[in-house]
Every structure is written in structure tokens, then in C-alpha cells.
């Protein structure tokens, strides 16, 4: 029995969370450093996972399997395929930056009672989320996955409802009410999805008699398991609904703008860049993996929904007055692209979708964190309160611009690769949808540039006239992300090498072949 690397990768942040929470109230800084170190160590472990993973090897690697609840055949079963590796790496990579960016977000306003220890809680919760996300990327047992998929909500709820922006244009009272509204909305939406999924999980067990992905796949392969079409469709819908809420797909998206708008920037990044990825990841692994026929059956509707999300999200982003809500709607548009790539059922589309998850995570993190720094300086989220920042804080403006350009997926930056792959993959099978989706490209440029123009350019407003430029800590957060964006933009091969085999497996799950070009040009 080799060293349980996957368990360790998830256990480290979990223990770190406990340790951080246990730090006494007075030693706030110690808690911060502890959290940072733990997240970095987790990053090292994740890197180890990526190294130990052979792209050419069998589908699930580094597997661990122990009996857990014998009566229901629930097993503690971990394993990663290329997609899992990529997303685990993304999570472990982003958390240190989130911690670093949120360094002062949870300092208590009044250093009053000893019992009240927000800082420790903040970082402990972040680490807890990391642990659960990583586990849900690793779990190959449906039930195990479901548990973490749901448990994730608890720390997220407290992170959203408990910690908001320092200064708020409407004053602390309304801010806290809006926060709690957003948190409850987030919780209810995801719980509703989760409950429906639970029903589907139980149904799956009744039908398949097992929770293990491999076993079900084998049973399918050797024909010992045949699902009736209707059963499969109902189960598929049960799963898909939960993931569509998490993703979020139109029209189940309205919780995201509230959550991202009210939460602090690092938490917003945690939501959209890390937690929501579980939804799209699960679509790829569970919806397609467990219910290939039903997936094919539902593809047209889902593609249309994705298309609506793309255009609709982009249009609403154009109409926003609040920086964070704008980014949120942009994310909705991007998630539309991801879902479209997944259900285009072409290897380009699915590789593109997987890369998109990673790239969107990094680019949104870059944009949102810089926006957070900006907001923390001026104490307002309204675009109209800014102007001419570029003159007083050029570095901040520059990084903001690069984040924005990544969001509009400029070639040379990472998101372009994935977005183009998704478009090509979709176009190859559904040309009309692919063409309509390109509208999203123009709209993305529109909302990004409008945001940049309104906030950064123009005459300097007196409120921002003595705004400080990025500090060393903040630069340490942004610079690596931008470097990564450029690197993955010009040389994404390492990522694609890991992802492609997994995508081939998925394609074979759904028994789909890429459409062949009509003219075989001389290669």
C-alpha cells in the first residue's frame, strides 16, 4: 500500500483549518501565516500529484479504496483522471493567493472581546473549503462525492454571510442585511439542487446497485447493467440540475451576482474560480460518465441554455453599475462557454471546456482580486465612483487591464486557447450555435473595455486623486497570476497533455466520434 497521496492532499488543508481555528484570539497574524503555509504545502502536494500522474496510464490513478458503509456499499474511493489533476492543481494554486489577498479582510473592526475571533475563522473556513473541493475532485464514489459537494456549502455560507467589504456605500446596516440575503440565497439554491441530486444518487444505487464509478462503468461495459431510457433520463436530470445550479447555468444563475457582489473579493474568487468548478467538473465526470445516452438526449436543450447564458450574461454584464456584479455576470457568460464545450461532445470542445475551467479560474482571480484592491482603496463598488485611476495608480490599472483582457480572452493569454477550442469544438458539430456564441466575444470586449474606460481612464476624480498604487503584498498576489496567464497562453501543451487522454475516455463513454473534415487536406 503506497503513500495515500490524494488523501494527504485533502487532509492537509483540513487539519490546517482546525489548527488555524484553534489559534488564540490575540495571535491573529500567526493564524494568517499558518493558513498561508498550509495552503502552500497543499500546493506542493498537488504538484506532487500532477508529477506522479502519467498521462498515458490508466484512467483513474493514485487510487485509494477502503470500505466505509458496508450496508450501502459506500466506499471511500479516491482517484484522479487528467481533468481532476488539472482542477486540483488549480484549486491548490489559487488558495494561497486568496489567503494572501484576504490578508486584512477579516481583521476585527473593534478589538473588543477575546471570544470574537473573525480572522481565525475566515482563514480556517477558506482552508476547509479547499479540503472539500479537492476531495470532491478526487472522489470516484458517487456518494462520497455527494457528501463533499454538499458539505462545501456550510463554510461557503459563513464566508459569504460573515465577511463583507470594509466600507460599503450604504453603510454597515444595509450591507449586513444584503450579505445575509446573499448568503441565504446561495445556500437555498445549492441545497435545493443538492436535495434533488440526493434523490438521483439513491435512485442510481437502486438501479446500479453500486456507488463506484468504475464498477458502474464495468457493469455498463460488460452489459450486466442496462438502464431503461426513461430511468436514465430522470437520474441524469437529477444530477444535472444540481450541477447546473452550481455552475451556474441560466436561469439558475441569480444567486451568483448577489453572492459575489456581497462577499469580499477573495471569497468571490473562491466561489466562482474554485467552488463553481465542481459543478462543471461533475457534469463532465458524472453526467456524461454515468448517463451517456441521457446526456446525448438532453444535449440540444442544454446547448441552448448554455448559449442563452453566454449572451445573456454578457449583456447583463454590460448593464451593471457594480464592479463585482459585472464580473459575476461575466463569469455566468464564461460558464455558458464551459457547459457548451462539455456538451458539444467533441474532443476539442471538452478539452477546451476543461482548459476553460482552469483558465477562467486564473483570469477571474486576477481581475477580481485587483478589483478588490481597488474597492478596498475607495470603499465603493460602484463603477461611477471611479475615474482616472490610471493616472494615479498605473500599476494597478495595468494589472486590471490585463485581467480584463484575459476575461475577453485576448489571444496570447490563456483563456483564448480554451475559448477558441470550445468554439471550434461546438462549431464542428453545431455550426449555428457556434456562430451565435461568437457574439459573446464581441460583448466580452464591450463590457471589459467599458469597465476599464469608466474606472481607469478620463480625468482624475478628486476622491481617487491620492489613491496608493499596488503594495508589495498585492503585487505578489497579482504578478504570478498574470505570469501564469501569459505562460498558459503561449504554451498550454503541458495542460493539454494531461487533459487529452481523460477527454478521450469521456468521449468513449458517450461513444462519440469527432466529425471528420470533408476534405482531407495534405497534412
Amino acid at each position, binding site marked *: 500500500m503506497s503513500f495515500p497521496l490524494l488523501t494527504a492532499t485533502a487532509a492537509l488543508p483540513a487539519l490546517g483549518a482546525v489548527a488555524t481555528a484553534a489559534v488564540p484570539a490575540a495571535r491573529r497574524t500567526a493564524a494568517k501565516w499558518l493558513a498561508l503555509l498550509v495552503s502552500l504545502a497543499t500546493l506542493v502536494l498537488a504538484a506532487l500529484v500532477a508529477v506522479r500522474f502519467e498521462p498515458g496510464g490508466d484512467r483513474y490513478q493514485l487510487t485509494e479504496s477502503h470500505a466505509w458503509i458496508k450496508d450501502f456499499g459506500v466506499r471511500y474511493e479516491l482517484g484522479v483522471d487528467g481533468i481532476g489533476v488539472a482542477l486540483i492543481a488549480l484549486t491548490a494554486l489559487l488558495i494561497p493567493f486568496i489567503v494572501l489577498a484576504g490578508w486584512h479582510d477579516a481583521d476585527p473592526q473593534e478589538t473588543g472581546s477575546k471570544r470574537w475571533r473573525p480572522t481565525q475563522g475566515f482563514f480556517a473556513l477558506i482552508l476547509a473549503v479547499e479540503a472539500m473541493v479537492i476531495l470532491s475532485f478526487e472522489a470516484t464514489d458517487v456518494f462520497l462525492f455527494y457528501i463533499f459537494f454538499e458539505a462545501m456549502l456550510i463554510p461557503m455560507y459563513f464566508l459569504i454571510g460573515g465577511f463583507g467589504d470594509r466600507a460599503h456605500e450604504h453603510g454597515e446596516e444595509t450591507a449586513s442585511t444584503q450579505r445575509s440575503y446573499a448568503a441565504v440565497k446561495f445556500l437555498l439554491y445549492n441545497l435545493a439542487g443538492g436535495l434533488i441530486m440526493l434523490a438521483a444518487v439513491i435512485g442510481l444505487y437502486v438501479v446500479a446497485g453500486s456507488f463506484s464509478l468504475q464498477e458502474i462503468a464495468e457493469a455498463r461495459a460488460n452489459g450486466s447493467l442496462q438502464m431503461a431510457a426513461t430511468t436514465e433520463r430522470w437520474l441524469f436530470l437529477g444530477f444535472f440540475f444540481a450541477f447546473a445550479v452550481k455552475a451556474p447555468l441560466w436561469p439558475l444563475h*441569480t444567486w451568483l451576482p448577489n453572492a459575489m457582489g456581497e462577499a469580499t473579493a477573495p471569497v468571490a474568487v473562491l466561489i466562482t474560480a474554485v467552488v463553481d468548478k465542481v459543478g462543471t467538473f461533475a457534469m463532465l465526470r458524472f453526467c456524461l460518465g454515468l448517463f451517456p445516452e441521457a446526456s446525448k438526449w438532453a444535449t440540444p436543450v442544454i446547448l441552448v441554455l448554455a448559449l442563452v447564458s453566454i449572451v445573456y450574461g454578457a449583456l447583463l454584464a454590460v*448593464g451593471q453599475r457594480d464592479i463585482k456584479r459585472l464580473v459575476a455576470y461575466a463569469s455566468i457568460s464564461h460558464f455558458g462557454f464551459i457547459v457548451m464545450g462539455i456538451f458539444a461532445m467533441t474532443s476539442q470542445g471538452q478539452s477546451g471546456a476543461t482548459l476553460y475551467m482552469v483558465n477562467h479560474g486564473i483570469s477571474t482571480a486576477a481581475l477580481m482580486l485587483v478589483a478588490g484592491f481597488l474597492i478596498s482603496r475607495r470603499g465603493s463598488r460602484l463603477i461611477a465612483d471611479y475615474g482616472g485611476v490610471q493616472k494615479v495608480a498605473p500599476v494597478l490599472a495595468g494589472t486590471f487591464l490585463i485581467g480584463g483582457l484575459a476575461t475577453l480572452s485576448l489571444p496570447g493569454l490563456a483563456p483564448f486557447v480554451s475559448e477558441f477550442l470550445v468554439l*471550434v469544438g461546438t462549431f464542428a458539430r453545431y455550426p449555428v450555435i457556434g456562430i451565435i456564441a461568437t457574439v459573446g466575444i*464581441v460583448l466580452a470586449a464591450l463590457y471589459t473595455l467599458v469597465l476599464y474606460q469608466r474606472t481607469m*481612464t478620463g480625468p482624475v476624480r478628486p476622491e481617487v486623486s491620492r489613491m496608493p498604487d499596488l503594495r508589495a503584498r498585492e503585487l505578489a498576489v497579482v504578478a504570478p497570476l498574470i505570469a501564469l496567464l501569459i505562460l498558459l497562453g503561449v504554451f498550454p501543451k503541458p495542460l*493539454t*497533455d494531461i487533459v487529452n487522454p481523460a477527454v478521450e475516455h469521456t468521449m468513449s463513454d458517450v461513444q462519440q466520434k469527432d466529425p471528420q473534415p470533408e476534405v482531407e487536406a495534405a497534412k
Partner: protein
Amino acid sequence: MENLIALLIAAPLLGAAVLLCGGRRLDAVGHWIGTVLAAASFAVGVVLFTDMLGRSAEERTLTRHLYSWIPVEGFRADVAFHLDQLSMTFVLLISGVGTLIHVYSIGYMEHDERRRRFFGYLNLFLAAMLLLVLADNYLLLYVGWEGVGLASYLLIGFWQHKPSAATAAKKAFLVNRVGDVGLSIAIMLMFTTFGTFAFGPVLAAAGDTGEGKLTAIALMLLLAACGKSAQVPLQSWLGDAMEGPTPVSALIHAATMVTAGVYLIVRSGAIFNAAPDAQLVVTVVGAVTLLFGAVVGCAKDDIKKALAGSTMSQIGYMVLAAGLGPIGYVFAIMHLVTHGFFKAGLFLGAGSVMHGMNDEVDMRRYGGLRKYMPVTFVTFGLGYLAIIGFPGLSGFFSKDKIIEAAFAKGGAEGWILGGAALLGAAITAYYMTRVMLMTFFGEERWRDAPTPSPAESDVEPAAETRGEYTPPHPHESPSSMTIPMIVLAFGSVFAGAFFGIGDRFLHWLEPVTGHAHGHPPVSALTVTLSTVVVLIVGVAIAWAQYGRRPVPAVAPRGSLLTRAARRDLLQDDFNHVVLVRGGEHLTRSLVYVDHTLVDGVVNGTAASVGGLSGRLRKLQNGYARSYAVSMFGGAAVLVAATLLMRAV
């Protein structure tokens, strides 16, 4: 040799990286770094050029495969370069003119505290443009394509504190983006049709597929070209792009950005050749833009905008030629190169004038400047003669060839296109003469204070200088600015003759683009003569209007056409009303819908659940006995259930 190709791009890219990340400590030397690296790129280009000349026409093509960029299941995008005569021409033009403009900017931007950044952007621009022309597949070209868009965005909006500049930059990027959609769809179509989008295989296999698909691809490519090359209907950004510093205008208009579209069409010649319908559309677009730009150029009082209009129309010539197919490709490129010289010269001249007139751009406030800035006058004059196609100068050779080719298209189309081209030549002569006269001749209108002019959106920059008026002191620009102008003037005088006589350029480019000799219905001599005639006519009219009579310092109201032309023939108004207003309303209403409808449904369910639970709460009245009743009733129900079970 192949490895040098990467160096072409790497040099300016490195410059951009260093200058943009370097921070303030580089402010002192920033401009030198930028210029030197641009020059280095040019030097490498020259080396490659000489090496290329050393080889026979067949194996002049160099390809360099760096690494595999996006490998996914049959979708293979590589970072690979392809250097043949066509790209070589562009490399030399871009890096050469680019370097000159760098040198010019050293003087022009001297007093700007963000000069380092400016040079960083310039280098980025060069790098992107070189990548565009050196890429060996459409996707990599797309990278350069958008990179150029980004650099232009940064440069046009360089003076970001001016809202007008920021808006212009945004507009340029967005309009380009629309074109880019065309390019990306074209690439997708290529991938689904040919399974690849590398130049070699696609162009080789172009003939094997149905004409319908090819037409679609070609039209999408044309859309892209329209966006980048400011062709109708995507030309509206070009005029506003003048908000950028003058060297930027020179760079964008003369040498690099706007020529990208022409490059794309010529490069994809094989596809267009196989899709005649698309070619026809291309020629029509070219002809329309040619006249459009010319008309706009006639009405503008802002010197840079007048030049912008002329650029538009000159690019129209090129696109027209490119649309003519094999008979036109070579001449399109040839006109592109000569235009690169004289238009760069003209813009730098304009910049030098503004430099001497403390950034006044309204030509009605110029006049009689020839004795104050002689060098500028001479170089500008030579550029002027070149662009109107004065016999013997470079513009003459290239433009004349295009007009010939247009007639040679044959049939009614040939006559129409040729006529349009001739008319365009006449108008060109008219408005360029106008610019020349208003700027360098006539009495000195800048001595007395400006009188507020009736609502003219174009003369804003002038109208800003209110308060007591101190007349500018026109002076010649520093040598760092004049030298490039002189060099370009040489180019604009001799390039055409050098290329045209003995069809040197034709033989140089033929192996790539292919060439077919067109046979115009009338003899080439007739075409040439008529060209000269219309040229003289145009100059004469202009002289009659602006040379003999004094030019009013305030623009007269003018005819309906004039006013429309001043407003870019109402293109912007159309965009504003239809796209901007409509878009705003759409987004507003969608925001409302999202908040009330989509969100309202959810909140409604939540509220109803709350109400229901509120009613159920009443059952919990806190009396132990009523709870006991429910227990007892439950027990009764259980008994009944068991009995029923046993009964069944």
C-alpha cells in the same frame, strides 16, 4: 537562417516587455531601448532579405516550426513561421517604417512623462504586426491580428486623461473585434472543411471543396479585413483613431495596421480565386470605400482627419485590386508599399506642423507655413505629389496599375470599377491639394484669435484654447523628426519607379501570389493619360477654391453633402442610434427582467413557503393537551392501519 525569423519578432517583443515591466528607472533610456530594438528587427529583416535574394525564386520560402501550440485530437495549432517574398515585403516595410517612426517619436514625445510606456506600446505593436505577417497558420495570424488590435487600443488611447481618446480607443478595439469574429468563424470553417488551418494545406486544397463553403470562408475573411483595414461598413473607427499621438496615426495608417486586411486577402488568394462571388463583393467594398474615404477627406478641416480619409480611400484602392484576383494582387501590395512611404511621410509632416503650431489641428488656422518650416514643407509636398499620383513619383506607378487592372476586369464591372477608381483619383488630387494649400500657402490665419465656430464637432481641439490668445511661433522640428521625414520622402519619390520599371516588383512577388496579365478594353496608355487628366482636373478645382480665394478662418456651413461628409457621412450617427442606443435599452430591460422575472420567481416561491409555514405555526399553540390529542389521534390511525393491513 530560419532561426533569425523568430528574432524578428523577439526583438520588439523583448523591448515591450522590458519597457512595460521595467518601471520608472528606465524612463531616461526607455526610448533608446525601444528604437534600438526596432532597428535591430529591421537589421535582421535586411539580413534575411539579402539571404533571400541570394536564392532562386523557387526555394526562397523559409519555414520555421518552433513548437506545437494547441495539440488536441486532430486540432493542431503550431507556433510556426513562414517567410516568403510576400511576408518579406511586409517585414521590411513594417520594421523599416516602424523604426523611422520610433526615431521620429523620440523628438515628438520628448515632453511627455510617459514616453517610456509609449515606446513599449510601439514595440508591442511592431511585434504583433510582424507575428501577423510571419505566421504560417491562420490561428497564429489571429494572435498577431488581435495583438495589433490591442496595441492600437493602447496607442490610440495613450492620452487616456482625454475622454475622447479613451472612447476612440474603445471604439477602435470593438469595431476590430467585430472583424475578428469574422476571422475566427473563417478559421472554424477551415477546420471543419479541411481539418487544418495552416496556410500550406488549406490553400493547396482550396479547390477540392464546394464553392459555397469557400465563398463563406472568403466572405468571413473579408469581414475581418474590413474591420482591420477600415473598409465600409467597419470604417468608423479610423477617423476617431486620430485621437492618438501623430506617430501612432502614421504607424497605424501608413505601414502597419490597416494594411493587415490587404495582406489577409492577398495571402488567402487561393481561396478567393476559387470563389468569384466573394471576389466581386471584395471589389465592390473596395470601390465604395475608395469613394467614401475620398469624399470624407474633402470635407474635414482637421488635417489628421483629412489624411485619415485619404488613407481609407487608398486602402480602398488596395482592396479593390486584391479583389480583382491574380491580375491585381501584386499591384495591391505594390501600392501598399508605396503608400506606406508617402502616407507615413504625410502624417509625420502633419505631426511636425502640429508640433510647430502647439498642437493646433484645424487647417483653417494654418496657412503660409512654408517659409517657417521648409523641410516639413518639402517632404510633405513630395508626399503630396506622390499620393495624387504625379507622373514619375511612386504613387503614379502603383495607382495607375490598379486602375488598369480594374478596367481589365472586363465587362460592365470592369467599366464601373475602373470609373470609380478614376473618380477616386480625381477626388484624391482635389482634397490633397486642398490640404496642401490650406496648410502651407495663403495668408497666415493663425495670427489672430480663433472665433468660436458654429457647432462643428470636428474642431473641438482648437475651440478648447479660450482666454487671451497668444499666437503660436511656427518653427522647424528637431532633426530627430525631420530625418525620418526626409528618408520617407526619398521612398515616396523613387520607390514606385524602382518597383514599376521593368516589373521588378512583379517578378519578385509572382511566385507567391501568382500573376495574370489583365487586358484592359482600352490601351494601357489611354488609362494612364486619363489618370493624368483627372488628376489635373482635381488639382485645378482645388486651386480654384482654396488657392485663388482666401480661406475663411471659420468653416462655412457648406452643402448638405459637405456637412454629411464632415460627420463621416452619418456613419457614426447610424451606429449611435441603432447600436449604442438600442444596446443600452436592451441591456437595461434585460437587467430589469433578470431582477424581476428570473429572480422574482425564486423569491415568490420562497415567500409562499414562508406564508404556509406561518399558517402551520398556529397549530403549535403550546397546550400540552392539544398535542396529546394529536398523539392520540396518531395512535388511532396506527391501530387502524394495522387492522387494515391484517384485513388485507
